[in-house]
């Protein structure tokens, strides 16, 4: 039996700020992580390991999800285990979680994201609500993340800019490819305001972490200099150095046990040898990423909580959200461009770091009623050469081989540079997107797997299409070729939130405004699952910020 003041289940962006803050305050923290503990020096730019064989996520034949997709022909839902349906809904199972593999495009939410209902009114079929806290409540913690995790960037005034308590980022912006200035020119000539994107990447060394060395292999890869602000490099390494934080990797928690005082008393887990162990603590924090957090809380049902811990009002697992939107891009044909420009565009490593937030609120009669819009981010295609080559072997449905394939490959790699865009808008919470336990399917631990229903609201697509059109207009202005864009209701499995929404009313929310389970005194949830609506930006900064906020509330109770 291991004892601690605080036991944190999950070591990603939701768990690591808790461990960092409380260990520095002198509390004994134990972090349980199901995956391995890779160090910065373990990470290499091995596309086979990271991206072809997916070594940082579980083998889907052993650990998986049951995915429920809508079957429009029958107006019913089909369940398929993710080892058959693909894509995987795991995003990085190791110490630091998926924050190791993020690209680190960091955006704050904006004040209107905290009051979507009062700002835009209800939408039929969507469970839109206001947050129980305001932007002003979270702002100090956004700022804290900038400083502690390390965010580089450049603040520019903008119509939709969120208020800041400091004038600028603590670290200067990262170096940019020449394409950033081309986006600026094209965007401005269209009357838009292209913005520099902040990144959770150090542009200068800090403490034990090196600066970014522009490896050109960032998203999907672990960082080899420590520049990327993963929960591991930025927070957990520091927490461990205090001597108060113990991280137990390869520890699969399968139940939170409760005592007769309605308190969580211990976390039961399997260690790397499959032996069952326990951690006893005063306070418990669950942060396994939305789907797995819900699963653990459901798996922990007991006599007093027969439907899952704290689930008397059936809120646990409801209102799961992703990031809606889409993606697209266009091609530079390098042989058409002046040699010097082509060479600069081809240069690997430096970042694009541009976004458009001109339509964070859409006020356009062509669209309809005033509505929440979103963010457009521009980026180069990831370097991953194997993926590019795999794609190049197809010409429509015709398979290329022999000399024809070789010619296409050479052209693809030496004469084309792809500029991509991603659209982020709200995935409206609905009754058709939620997590339960599957009654039949079990993982290698013989525990029921999470069943995830993946319904979306048609409004999401409408907003996504509007923003995609705007993004394409920039690429057209840049005279790119093969301009494309697509919007769909398929969720991006790396952008998950909701499922344990926080709120002031226990009848309609699972957590209170401090992310404590309404019905249980010593149990908190701090990954993205607390978010009742997702905003229109990637979540990581908000998850970090909220977790720092909760750490402060939690420490007041120790």
């Amino acid at each position, binding site marked *: 039996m291991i004892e601690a003041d605080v036991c944190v289940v999950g070591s990603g962006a939701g768990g690591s700020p808790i461990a960092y803050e409380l260990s520095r305050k002198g509390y004994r923290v134990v972090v349980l992580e199901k995956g391995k503990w890779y160090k910065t020096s373990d990470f*290499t730019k091995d596309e086979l390991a990271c991206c072809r*064989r997916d070594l940082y996520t579980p083998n889907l034949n052993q650990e998986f999800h049951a995915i429920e997709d809508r079957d429009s022909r029958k107006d019913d839902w089909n369940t*398929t285990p993710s080892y058959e349906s693909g894509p995987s809904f795991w995003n990085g199972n190791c110490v630091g979680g998926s924050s190791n593999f993020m690209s680190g495009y960091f955006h704050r939410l904006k004040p209107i994201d905290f009051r979507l209902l009062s700002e835009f009114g209800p939408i039929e079929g969507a469970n839109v609500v206001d947050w129980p806290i305001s932007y002003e409540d979270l702002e100090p913690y956004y700022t804290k993340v900038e400083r502690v995790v390390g965010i580089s960037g450049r603040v520019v005034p903008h119509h939709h800019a969120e208020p800041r308590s400091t004038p600028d980022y603590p670290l200067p912006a990262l170096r940019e490819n020449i394409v950033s200035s081309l986006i600026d020119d094209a965007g401005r000539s269209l009357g838009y305001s292209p913005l520099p994107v902040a990144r959770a990447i150090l542009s200068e060394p800090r403490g034990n972490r090196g600066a970014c060395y522009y490896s050109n292999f960032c998203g999907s890869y672990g960082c080899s200099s420590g520049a990327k602000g993963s929960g591991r490099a930025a927070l957990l390494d520091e927490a461990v150095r205090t001597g108060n934080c113990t991280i137990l990797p390869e520890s699969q928690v399968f139940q939170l046990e409760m005592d007769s005082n309605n308190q969580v008393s211990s976390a039961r887990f399997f260690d790397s040898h499959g032996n069952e162990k326990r951690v006893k603590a005063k306070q418990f924090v669950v942060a396994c990423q939305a789907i797995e957090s819900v699963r653990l809380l459901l798996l922990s049902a007991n006599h007093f909580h027969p439907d899952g811990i704290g689930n008397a009002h059936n809120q646990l697992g409801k209102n799961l959200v992703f990031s809606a939107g889409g993606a697209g891009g266009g091609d530079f044909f390098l042989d058409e461009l002046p040699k010097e420009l082509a060479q600069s565009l081809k240069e690997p490593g430096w970042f694009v770091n541009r976004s458009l937030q001109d339509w964070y609120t859409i006020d356009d009669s062509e669209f309809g009623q005033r509505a929440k819009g979103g963010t457009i981010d521009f980026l180069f295609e990831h370097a991953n050469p194997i993926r590019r080559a795999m794609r190049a*072997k197809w010409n429509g449905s015709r*398979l290329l*081989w022999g000399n024809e394939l070789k010619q296409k490959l*050479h052209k693809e790699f030496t004469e084309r540079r792809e500029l991509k865009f991603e659209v982020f808008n709200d995935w409206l919470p609905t009754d058709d997107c939620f997590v339960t336990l599957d009654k039949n399917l079990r993982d290698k631990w013989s525990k029921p797997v999470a069943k995830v229903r993946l319904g979306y609201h048609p409004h999401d697509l409408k907003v996504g299409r509007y923003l995609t059109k705007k993004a394409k207009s920039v690429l057209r202005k840049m005279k790119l070729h093969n301009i494309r864009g697509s919007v769909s209701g398929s969720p991006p499995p790396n952008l998950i939130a909701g499922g344990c929404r926080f709120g002031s009313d226990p009848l309609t929310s699972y957590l209170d405004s401090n992310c404590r389970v309404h019905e249980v005194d010593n149990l908190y949830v701090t990954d993205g699952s607390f978010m009742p609506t997702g905003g229109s930006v990637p979540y990581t900064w908000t998850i970090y910020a909220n977790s720092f906020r909760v750490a402060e509330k939690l420490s007041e109770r120790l």
Partner: protein
Amino acid sequence: MNSVTFSNSLNNFLSGKISRREFIRSSLALASIASLGQLLGCVYQDAQVLPRLSPQQDEQMSAVFDVLFPSEQESPGARELDTLAYLHFVMLDPTYDSSDKELIQSGLERLQEESDKRFGKPFLTLRAEQRHLLFEHIQTLSWGKRWMTRLLNVALEGMLADPLYGSNRDGAGWRWLEFQPGVPRPTAIPTEMRPKA
């Protein structure tokens, strides 16, 4: 799913346009698990799990890769890149899809059958243009397209993976495509990808 979309999906699967996983997913709407099992059983009926290639199979595979990814004066082919070495690695890699491994091997036998049918002699005795014609033909067959797709996957993956894995000898694949590999490069094959003792 009606029978038209089902057969589309089946064709996509057989031609390698969608993975087995995607195929099963799209088929579950129509087919019962039992009938699906029979179907897949047919597809794989002659597959045998033989992780190591025999010397004879090696020779055949080399010849196949010469057709699929030929050597040219200006650019490396499967021979210079040593695609065969990567195939050997793949066949023993526990993280590589086992049904793909089966398909890769069983395809060689079918190639021989087709060679006998069309030219009345073994593949290895065909002249270069006959080999090419044979592949033109088998790419129109559902198993053939699927098989060629898997082999091209192996060739391309090997060509652009770190030389550590056996192909892309001296970084010849990267050099040809003017690709700058990321650093640090891997120095050892991850334990998960090594054959289980």
